[in-house]
């Protein structure tokens, strides 16, 4: 086993966690939107991609990465709210397939518009100066930026958790995801809540796209790849479950990075194998509720 030392495996585990952190951010937005609005947002990848391009654009205008960390989620979230208000909202109450088809079509339009504006080839995205280099994490040197990705994800998760558990608006979201009608007869304008939840979900997707940009570069198709992987994450974690999205996101990240270490030719299919196994043993996913779609 020369070359496959403990340290290497441990480092690869951290690489998997950083990759998983991006999945987690992507999937919690997807899960939040599905859990609350029962909208399967096929444009989620496109919002992610727009987040990366928004960062690219802001940096080219003289902004820096730290400004982007705040501005990109705000921009993408606002865009998300416009999409919910004018495109998704008219389709509520018509069954799950209408918003699905709408967001599917929308994602193509968004990708095409980005191609027109920025060209079809990708761009590199510089790692911010402060986060370049590597640090010793005990098992070897690990890129500082990836550590930052894990930390930033943890901050978003803690913030989201506090928001959901400790605020009145979070209480409305938790109750509304289970029973929108009771929330309505208790005086809540549910359509406003849906608007904001869609905004939060897409803002986090934009944030994830920005975080991923220095790792993978920026291309118009970057959202399509992660969308497929994120669906694996939501299926494994359980549709609509945020806790499930976190656990499954990290797991999928680790499975991808481990299989690319041990069996690179299997890296692409390993997560689908994972999904198949989970579906056989626990069809509703780790934390999903059975029969959610029925």
């Amino acid at each position, binding site marked *: 086993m020369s070359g496959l030392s403990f340290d290497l495996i441990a480092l690869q585990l951290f690489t998997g966690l950083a990759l998983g952190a991006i999945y987690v951010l992507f999937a919690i937005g997807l899960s939040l939107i599905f859990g609350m609005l029962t909208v399967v947002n096929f444009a989620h990848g496109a919002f992610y991609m727009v987040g990366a391009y928004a960062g690219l654009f802001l940096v080219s205008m003289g902004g820096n990465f730290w400004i982007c960390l705040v501005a990109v989620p705000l921009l993408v979230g606002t865009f998300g709210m416009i999409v919910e208000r004018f495109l998704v909202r008219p389709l509520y109450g018509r069954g799950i397939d209408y918003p699905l088809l709408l967001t599917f079509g929308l994602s193509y339009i968004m990708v095409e518009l980005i191609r027109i504006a920025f060209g079809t080839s990708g761009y590199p995205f510089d790692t911010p100066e402060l986060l370049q280099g590597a640090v010793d994490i005990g098992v070897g040197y690990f890129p500082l930026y990836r550590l930052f990705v894990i930390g930033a994800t943890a901050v978003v998760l803690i913030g989201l958790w506090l928001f959901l558990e400790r605020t009145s*608006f979070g209480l409305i979201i*938790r109750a509304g995801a*289970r029973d929108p009608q*009771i*929330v*309505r*007869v*208790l005086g*809540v304008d549910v359509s406003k809540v849906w608007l904001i939840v869609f905004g939060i979900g897409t803002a986090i997707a934009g944030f994830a796209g920005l975080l991923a940009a220095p790792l993978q570069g920026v291309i118009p198709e970057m959202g399509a790849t992660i969308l497929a992987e994120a669906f694996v994450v939501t299926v494994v974690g359980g549709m609509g479950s945020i806790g499930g999205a976190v656990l499954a996101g990290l797991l999928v990240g680790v499975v991808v990075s481990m299989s690319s270490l041990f069996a690179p030719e299997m890296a692409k299919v390993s997560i689908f194998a994972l999904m198949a196994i989970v579906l056989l043993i626990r069809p509703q996913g780790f934390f999903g509720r059975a029969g959610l779609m029925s």
Partner: protein
Amino acid sequence: MPEPMLRIRDLNGWYGPSHVLQDISLEVDRGEIVCLIGRNGAGKTTTLKTIMGLLDRRSGSVIFKEEEILAAPAHVRFARGLAYVPEERRIVQGLSVRENLRLGLVASKAKHEETRRIEDIARIFPRLAERLEQEAVTMSGGEQQMLAIARAMIARPDLVMLDEPSEGIMPVLVDEMFDLFRRMKSEGTTILLVEQNVELALAIADRAYVLDQGMIVHQASAQALLADDEIKERYCSV
């Protein structure tokens, strides 16, 4: 002079193509307990839902505190002081008793005095006071019903509509609940009650309307109806 709280004229409602409410007219005065009785499927629940704004197709007039609310969405009706406790209680899974109570205040002007309101309501519902931090769905059916009523009452609505509050609940708790309704009335709450347990409901009500096939077929004082075995037999399957 009785002051009309809710005045409904020629209310019609549809579920898809079926015309489920036909020309319903009824009135509830401030401080009254008015009861809707009738067989299963007579349109009692649908009447309450339509008053709350939960039926999409409706026509006619619903005047609440002198304002027409027929076109208003449910959350606006709540803001005007109309509360509704649906049939299946609808206690939210995953939330504690306290969180369910807080939910009754999230859209209310009284949100800033949440702690005090919860203390006040806990005094009225001592069973809930002992269980504030418990997950609400682990309580018994009767306790969950108490919680559903408390959740609707915590914002202090002017009129509360209760759909089958005694359904599936232990008799001892049913008595407790009906005592509570009397107390709510004496403190100024107006109640529109749908109840299968006709004798019990009429014992606390001022007036009653009898529904059959989506129409009001009879109305009388509760006392008169209690004595009217023919009507009760014909429309209430008791």
